[in-house]
């Protein structure tokens, strides 16, 4: 029984690992921290897995656990501010796909998002993942109205970071 649970869990996580990687990408700045956070999220997912009854989709449940681990449970916060190497690996921008101004703009946007606080990042993350405000509100435990208000504030904040 335990072996089966283990197998199901690892298979499902392997299929959905992108979600966790993306959370790690936003919340950490170098490869080592990325792996560290990935591991902590995996442990938290595994610990909570026996209670996962499938009321929601596995991926929805994963969003919650992964974000909660990043903004609440994760302890190591010694983050290096600037790590160009790492960014170029994760956000490899293919020259032929983008024109130069757009590429530059994206780079600045990613940099700005990384400067946001933990909660703001969580909202931006869910927005980028195309989640609606109902889901964002449920995940964070706030009302839908507040989620919208917060998102508008973040947009203003990003604008200030980009055009100081």
């Amino acid at each position, binding site marked *: 029984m335990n072996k089966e649970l283990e197998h199901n869990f690892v298979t499902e996580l392997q299929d959905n690992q992108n979600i966790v990687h993306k959370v790690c990408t936003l919340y950490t700045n170098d490869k080592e921290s990325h792996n560290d956070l990935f591991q902590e999220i995996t*442990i938290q997912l595994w610990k909570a897995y026996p209670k996962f009854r499938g009321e929601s989709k596995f991926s929805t449940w994963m969003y919650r656990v992964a974000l909660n681990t990043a*903004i*609440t449970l994760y302890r190591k916060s010694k983050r290096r501010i600037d790590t160009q190497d790492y960014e170029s690996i994760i956000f490899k921008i293919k020259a032929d796909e983008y024109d130069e101004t757009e590429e530059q703009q994206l780079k600045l946007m990613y940099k700005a998002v990384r400067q946001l606080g933990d909660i703001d990042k969580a909202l931006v993350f869910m927005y980028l993942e195309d989640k609606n405000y109902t889901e964002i509100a449920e995940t964070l435990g706030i009302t839908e109205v*507040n989620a919208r208000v917060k998102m508008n504030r973040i947009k203003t904040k*990003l604008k200030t970071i*980009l055009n100081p």
Partner: protein
Amino acid sequence: MTDELDLLKRDWQKKEVNLPKLSYSDIHKMIWKKSSSIVKWILIISILEFTLPHLLYLLPSMQDGMEVYKKLGISNYLLIVSIITYSAAIYFIVQFYKRFREISVPDNSKSLMNKIIRTRRTVKHYVIFSLSMIMLTVIVMVIGVFFSHDIADAFPDLRQGLQNISEEKLRFTLMASIGGFGVVLTLFMGCVYFLLYGLLLRKLNKNYRELRQLEI
């Protein structure tokens, strides 16, 4: 800004191809690794905070102290203090265990943070209670010394060295040193506690405040 965020969204979704791909065995290995989450640290530190004050009583020098209390005529008061301390400790441990069990990672973020803070608050109340009890014990001792008829008899070790000191002087020196020791010990333990508490929950408290501020 919406346009730029939408541009970012399109790009973000294309980026999936560049993300690392872990194999089945990579992930399988990870599930048996030890967690270093805040919840685990809270459990470890809380257990230490529950047990440390009681371990003090196991030290031989503390057991010798019982003799002194008897001679000072305050052992009955201290017995009552001990009974209260232990009953309260059991109450706090049960509360802590209940709260700790409630912590659930798939909960929504605000409620998860709230539960962690509440769990920690139970320990905080226990620490404040313990420190008050230490202070109370010290006060009982100081009063005991004040009303004791023969202090030199209660502290036989002091008798030889302090023969030429007057009874009154000895009484006040003892009261001052016991009182001073009590205050220093309480302050020290209080500082250690609040430092640990602050460091451990700094990030969580900040994020929780941010979520709550939205409601105002």
